[in-house]
């Protein structure tokens, strides 16, 4: 392995800082380092509660090579298990399904409850003998990862050492406490994925800042001008952008999506778009929210999982199906407009003389905030 590059130039003020070096976008060795120090050491998004809506629903997820199993138990709680049998290491569930009773390993049928407890190890002591003095059932439950659900995103801390989610993200939770309300997924149109040829961090960086809006999203500019946006920066925590001129979508008859209950005046025309480090992008507005989980496939490929939510259910607002469809198309267009940018930045980082780039001190604070955070995680990992 080459000597790790110094990140001092990243961790200075935005006025003088450089961005993360090329290796952090194109070098598989650095990608492996970030996998551990950035993605596994923090609270990463891996899926959505809406993917396992019913008791017994189970969905396998491969997160950077780690086989995970998302499960909703009979009490409605979400669990994230290592999708690996404690016996011979067989993957337990290979496709989404509803589990009526226990999770049964397809190899030797060791059975686990939805809460992860080992309930049967058939023939473990010989034929027809289901006990053995050296096989302790209560020591062989499923490996459980710490998980937390917020804004319907399922977060997981793989290495188990992060501070509690509520503590890490206390400021943002407080900032958006008015949106801590039931969310109703918009249905099949409101769920889409984009496969992009880019390192996952570039998707975060692009999302954080409004600087690019007039150039990349000219359609937004007609009503959402650059000067109507503000930076959101919390050093070591999160960053993003806000708008002062969010305008509700209106149907032909003037119909609108119902608002979330009890919002303050700020949200009449306000909207905020924040990157929850490391890999979750959230947006909130008076009448709908969205969540994006960035799934890093490898150093240069990412899948964006995008879900849109509303204040009321589809059943409660059946007459607005056409608008939900239209809204999803609008957001999909916006996110697709960003693809050439994040893919172009990825290609640009193969230029060996690129030095990480210089930031606009006025406009790029949120992006630099993310770079600073990533660099801090890497330095922390190197120090331990």
């Amino acid at each position, binding site marked *: 392995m080459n000597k790790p590059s110094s990140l001092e130039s990243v961790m200075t003020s935005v006025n003088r800082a450089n961005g993360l070096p090329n290796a952090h976008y194109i070098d598989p060795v650095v990608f492996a380092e970030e996998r551990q120090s950035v993605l596994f050491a923090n609270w990463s998004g891996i899926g959505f509660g809406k993917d396992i809506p019913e008791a017994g629903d189970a969905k396998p997820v491969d997160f950077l090579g780690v086989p995970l199993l998302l499960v909703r138990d009979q009490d409605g709680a979400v669990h994230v298990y290592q999708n690996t049998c404690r016996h011979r290491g067989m993957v337990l569930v290979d496709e989404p399904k509803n589990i009526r*009773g226990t999770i049964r390993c397809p190899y030797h049928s060791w*059975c686990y409850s939805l809460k992860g407890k080992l309930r*049967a190890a058939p023939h473990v002591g010989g034929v*027809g003998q*289901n006990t053995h003095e050296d096989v302790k*059932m209560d020591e062989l439950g499923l490996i459980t990862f710490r998980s937390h659900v917020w804004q319907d995103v399922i977060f997981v801390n793989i290495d188990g050492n992060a501070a509690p989610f509520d503590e890490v993200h206390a400021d943002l939770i407080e900032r958006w406490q008015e949106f801590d309300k039931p969310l109703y997924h918009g249905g099949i149109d409101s769920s889409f994925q984009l496969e992009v040829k880019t390192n996952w961090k570039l998707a975060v960086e692009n999302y954080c800042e409004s600087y690019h809006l007039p150039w990349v999203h000219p359609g937004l500019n007609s009503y959402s001008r650059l000067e109507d946006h503000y930076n959101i920066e919390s050093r070591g925590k999160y960053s993003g952008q806000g708008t002062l001129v969010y305008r509700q979508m209106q149907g032909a008859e003037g119909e609108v999506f119902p608002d979330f209950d009890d919002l303050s005046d700020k949200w009449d025309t306000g909207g905020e778009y924040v990157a929850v480090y490391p890999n979750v992008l959230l947006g909130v507005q008076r009448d709908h929210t969205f969540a994006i989980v960035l799934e890093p496939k490898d150093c240069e490929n990412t899948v964006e999982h995008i879900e849109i939510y509303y204040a009321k259910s589809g059943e409660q607002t059946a007459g607005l199906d056409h608008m939900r469809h239209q809204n999803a198309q609008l957001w999909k267009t916006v996110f697709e407009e960003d693809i050439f940018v994040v893919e172009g930045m990825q290609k640009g980082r193969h230029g060996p003389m690129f030095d990480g780039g210089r930031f606009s001190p006025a406009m790029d604070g949120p992006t630099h905030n993310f770079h600073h955070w990533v660099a801090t995680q890497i330095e922390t990992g190197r120090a331990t």
Partner: protein
Amino acid sequence: MTQEWTSEIWATIRPEEAAALHAAILAAHAQHDLERLVDLYAIAADSKEVEGDVDATCFFLTQAFVFALEAGVARAHELNRRLVAYGRAWPLE
């Protein structure tokens, strides 16, 4: 053979009927019919119990118990109790 296996006929299984039971179990496996697997393995266990073959009984009880657990059916408790009575399983909580 189209023998319809039900729990009522467990005591009447004759050697020549064992093949049909075996075939029914294979078909239930192929169809992932958990409730059927529970019933059929329990029938096999019952027949072996009548013969006094404890190891074979507990083998089939175990099979029935596992599929009952997977299916989430209440019969898992009854099957577990029988295994526990033979000293072959821990009691379910």
